[in-house]
């Protein structure tokens, strides 16, 4: 064997050795379980625990995905996304625009507006859980109690209240994203418009917004993906209640799998969620590639 072939063999062996830890972990905790989830959907949970579950093929998929419960889950999830994503983007954009100026002390305001990135979903939710508590909560006091038991126990207000907490928690992230976008705008164009006498609101609507549209779209897609995956705030604030009013798809998955002992049912819902997120991720990847090519032009 020549020295060159030997070197190539050794290089190849080293290559496999270096990718092995990552790929091994992916195989065990991403690819295998993904296939297994799809497979679990073929099995119906036994009527009582400890009995074997039995194989029903695609029957369970058809039944679960065609059920009115699944449609309701999707409807509530879509409502939650609708409540959080546009509001979040508008709030983030307004704050970024407000802080996009060079007055003394502006750095302090920027720090304050980005401060909610320090809060996790659990921190934000537990803080609001007590703030919205009908007996002791300052917010529930300001809101005027909202019907005795508070907003979180009210079927009409539970999901909007969870959405409000989510929007608040995400203010920091959207502010940072929108600020970075505003700072990347071509200053000459904005200056030229100013010289031409365009007012602030005209400049914002006719120049800034169109230039920002790619990043707004980006923020919307990751917002929708995040909305479908919002779990902690539901778990801490409403547990899907009252009376299923805030039972979004992911919370249904959790309850079916870990509280109702129905992994097959939960697996079908998981595959549905996976499909939805896959489409959204493709939209986002396609868009991100375009954004990169813009940047390198």
């Amino acid at each position, binding site marked *: 064997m020549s020295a060159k072939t030997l070197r190539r063999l050794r290089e190849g062996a080293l290559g496999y050795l*270096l990718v092995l830890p990552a790929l091994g972990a992916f195989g065990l905790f991403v690819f295998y379980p993904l296939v297994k989830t799809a497979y679990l959907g073929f099995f119906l949970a036994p009527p009582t625990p400890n009995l074997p579950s039995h194989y029903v093929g695609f029957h369970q998929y058809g039944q679960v995905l065609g059920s009115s419960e699944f449609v309701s889950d999707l409807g509530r999830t879509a409502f939650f996304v609708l409540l959080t994503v546009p509001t979040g983007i508008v709030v983030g954009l307004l704050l970024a625009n407000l802080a996009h100026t060079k007055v003394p002390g502006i750095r302090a305001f920027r720090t304050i507006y980005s401060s909610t990135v320090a809060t996790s979903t659990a921190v934000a939710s537990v*803080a609001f859980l007590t703030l919205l508590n009908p007996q002791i909560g300052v917010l529930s006091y300001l809101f005027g109690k909202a019907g005795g038991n508070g907003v979180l126990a009210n079927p009409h207000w539970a999901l909007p209240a969870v959405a409000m907490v989510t929007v608040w928690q995400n203010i920091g992230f959207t502010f940072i994203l929108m600020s970075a976008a505003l700072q990347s705008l071509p200053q000459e164009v904005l200056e030229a418009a100013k010289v031409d006498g365009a007012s602030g609101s005209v400049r914002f609507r006719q120049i800034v917004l169109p230039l920002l549209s790619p990043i707004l779209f980006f923020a919307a897609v990751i917002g929708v993906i995040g909305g479908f995956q919002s779990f902690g705030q539901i778990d801490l604030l409403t547990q899907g209640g009252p009376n299923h009013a805030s039972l979004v798809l992911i919370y249904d998955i959790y309850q079916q799998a870990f509280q109702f002992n129905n992994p097959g049912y939960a697996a079908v819902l998981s595959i549905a969620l996976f499909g939805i997120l896959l489409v959204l991720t493709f939209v986002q990847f396609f868009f991100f590639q375009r954004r990169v090519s813009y940047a390198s032009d």
Partner: protein
Amino acid sequence: MPATEASARRTRHLRLVVRYAVLIGAAAIVLFPIYITIVDALLTPQQITHRPPTLFPTDPQWNTFVTAFRQGSLGIYLRNSAIVTFAVVALEVTTSVLAAYAFVFLKFPARKILFFACLATLMVPGEATLIPNYQTINGLGLLNTFPSLILPFVASGIGIFLFRQAFLGFPPELRDAAQLDGCGHLKFLFRIVAPINRSVIAAFALFAFLSAWNQYLWPLVVTQTDSVRTVQIGLRQLSGANFSQFNVVFAGTILAALPIAILLLLFQRQLVAGLTAGAVKG
């Protein structure tokens, strides 16, 4: 002339005053929940239940924070979160750097397909793998242990993607020069490639830290006792407290957010890079 100049100056001043008023108003709204949480943490349980609510602590109860730390097992939760987060970040950075190096600097069969497999993991959300992963961890007898909180997160598709992008920018002539000088691959990686790309690595590490620290669903599913519960799940335990302990819940909430707040104040610039990089995945 002087009159119009004076009025122009007045308009400018007025505009500035209005801008500051709006800036302060917006800041007050954003900070209000945090402010009230801090205030309530410093009140006695009796003051918290008092109506109308107390908006300023006249007699701050600082020892509530000590109570929260001791009584609510918050110290243990924070320690557990620190252990899990540091382990996850260290492992994710290591496995990603090694894999990205191989994908850029080494030639081996199926290199492209394997890289594509790493990218494909970005499209699989944790929810789609939750139930089988729970079964795997349970089957290994690892439920309610630190490894159960760490193992599923030892590799990161975003990390590999970002590091590969960064390494691709490395001039090939330099690699050849290093090789001529007898510099082996591992030495080249740890002495030259990794140090040069430290800002990308730091940005990713910060992003990985935030995601690991804020994990909720997985730790909820695999932990059963306080000895391994992370601080996010610990907060869930705390939130079930009764009225007499609400001040402790508020203090616990502040303490749980504090490490991240400090980290973010220290690394504000890397945070922007890390968050926008992480936003690729969402």
